[in-house]
């Protein structure tokens, strides 16, 4: 295989891992709570600003700034769940799904404009995790930050899978996702599980935002485009399926990179939607999704 094509494949896979990290938090919130979080991109943005605050303003090492950024976004997620999302489950709201969509969309606009008003319109670059560039393959050199983000994406994806499939907490979360009533009857605190899901999603969004900020900068609408990709991944992988999201993210990164080489760069963002349409025609529930059973 041509080294040039191989280098594009490697770049596509690395970017796919980054996509996976971005989509993971969104997938968890939807999977557990059935809430489409339109403010997910702004959670990423908050992660980036938090890293800037910890590393540049407060002068902390980025490896210390990363967990602090994750914790900050997780705390914000918990606050969001407590104040804004909880009424969906604890009160008799008509059409709770629509309520959640409007609410998270409004939160997204609020956070973007809040960032514009407080941090200004300009771009910031937090301190690097790994400065400089390294040769990867052929003429492909990539920044240390990009490689670090991809490596951390692997670690965080594996850790999430471990938590979800190998711990009591993960099983409780999945039980709540399957049936809130059934989980409650079995002694699981469904409200607590919601909060846990949002906290987990916040941790992952904070990590993604912080890891990507030295690469793609931080500014008020930095999360707008990535969240669109995350939605494509969410649907492509099967709504709420974590392994599906990871596979879909890798496919997306690969398709975009190879489409750019063999077709045209001008339509890079179109390829993801073409793949999505093609998959949904064959598998309407996505790659790993299942037809929902309703009682």
């Amino acid at each position, binding site marked *: 295989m041509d080294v*040039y094509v191989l*280098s594009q494949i490697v770049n596509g896979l690395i970017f796919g891992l980054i996509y996976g990290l971005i989509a993971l938090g969104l997938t968890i919130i939807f999977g557990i709570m059935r809430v489409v979080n339109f403010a997910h991109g702004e959670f990423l943005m908050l992660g980036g600003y938090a890293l800037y605050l910890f590393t540049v303003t407060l002068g902390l090492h980025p490896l210390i700034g990363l967990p602090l950024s994750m914790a900050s976004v997780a705390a914000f997620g918990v606050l969001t769940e407590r104040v804004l999302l909880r009424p969906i489950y604890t009160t008799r709201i008509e059409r709770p799904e629509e309520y959640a969509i409007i609410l998270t969309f409004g939160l997204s606009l609020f956070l973007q404009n809040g960032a*514009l008003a407080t941090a200004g319109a300009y771009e910031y670059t937090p301190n690097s995790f790994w400065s400089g*560039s390294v040769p990867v393959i052929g003429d*492909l050199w990539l*920044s240390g930050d990009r490689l670090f983000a991809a490596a951390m994406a692997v670690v965080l994806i594996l850790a999430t899978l471990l938590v979800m499939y190998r711990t009591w907490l993960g099983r409780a979360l999945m039980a709540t996702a399957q049936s809130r009533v059934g989980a409650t009857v079995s002694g699981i605190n469904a409200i607590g599980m919601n909060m846990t899901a949002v906290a987990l999603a916040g941790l992952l969004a904070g990590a993604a935002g912080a890891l990507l900020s030295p690469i793609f900068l931080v*500014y008020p609408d930095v999360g707008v485009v990535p969240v669109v990709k995350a939605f494509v991944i969410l649907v492509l992988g099967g709504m709420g399926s974590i392994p599906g999201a990871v596979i879909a993210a890798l496919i997306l990164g690969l398709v975009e990179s190879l489409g750019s080489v063999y077709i045209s*760069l001008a339509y890079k*963002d179109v390829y993801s939607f073409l793949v999505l349409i093609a998959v949904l025609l064959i598998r309407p529930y996505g790659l790993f999704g299942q037809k929902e059973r309703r009682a």
Partner: protein
Amino acid sequence: MTSTKTRLLAGLPLLAALATAGPAIAADTIKVGGLAPLSSPGAYQQGKELVLGLQWAVDDFNAAGGLDGKMVELVVEDTQGKPPVGATAAEKLITSEGVVGLAGEYHSSVCSAEIEVAKQHGKPFVIASCWSDNLTEAGYAEVFRTSVYSSKLAENMVGLAAEAGIKKVAAIVEDSDYGVGIAKNIEGAITKLGADIDFSYEVVEKTGKDFVPVLLKYKTQVKPEMIISAVTQPGGFLVLKQAHEIGFAPSSDTLFLDATCTSQNDKVFWEAVKDAGKNVLLSCPFSPSVKLTPLGETIKARYTKEFDREPNYVVLQGYDSMQALLEGMKAAGSTDGPKIVEALKTLTFDGSRGPVKFETGPGVWTQQWKDVPTFIFQYTEVDQAAGDASVLFPPAFATAKIAK
């Protein structure tokens, strides 16, 4: 509850006073419309600077006595970088706010929609910072432009490349009227100037994040001596960062030229790109290192004092466009749209960057300030101030040769 009611009742006279005072205030002022992208997906970073220039022109006009003692009020609408929103904003300013004319805007695609509205209502529109040739080539009587235009920028870039003996140039342009337009203009300039340059370009989505695929293609397959980026902020910053990361440009083999001039906002630029910005070339309508008119120097000093940095070109382009509209109104001695349009056609005034005069044509020069200055600069050190960047082109202003 009672105290809330009491407070509300107490506030009623104030509300009534405001309601009656509103029309009286409006009747005593002349409204002018300002158009600028102030939110995503528009380049709101530049929109903010643009509005500042528009407002300062209005402030200075009012400080000089306004129009026969009547003060001017600037009403700004956010066009979001979206053509339909721009058209709606222009319509709203004209029909709801009753503005006498429009000035501003940053995105060429949005300007394309707005000039249709200005034409439909017979209101003057002085374009501040939309560079596409198509806008004045349309030949609308109501449309004037004080900013630089793409074909002039393209001729400068090709002129510099030819002078430096560069034979192969590649561009990354955004998917907008401006981006594709500048690529076409570079092709036209190569033909017009008879330059021996092999030129190719790729269109990318301006909201894109990962430009490594195209940069890798250029690095390994095309191997240009100069890469031109016509992607606006923040995408343009990412193109530069990623070109640097993959060891492509700026380098001794490949120059990097920012055609959008967004890198001129030096503090923001260096904060965003860090050492990737060393030896970057900038094609700009202005530089703090170039002598301005007395008015321009005053604006520059005011900006530097207020923001602790030197202004970029957008503030000046905003100022000049609004100044043109206000001077046109003054020359017409009227707030009537068609009369202002007629006055603008023969108007000459000292703008921030030189004496402004609108040509009669043909083509792109239709109601365009033809002699609008434009330059190519180069940052030769990391964290260098825009005012300290070397001037490379035109030759009459050059202070240095290209550094690699």
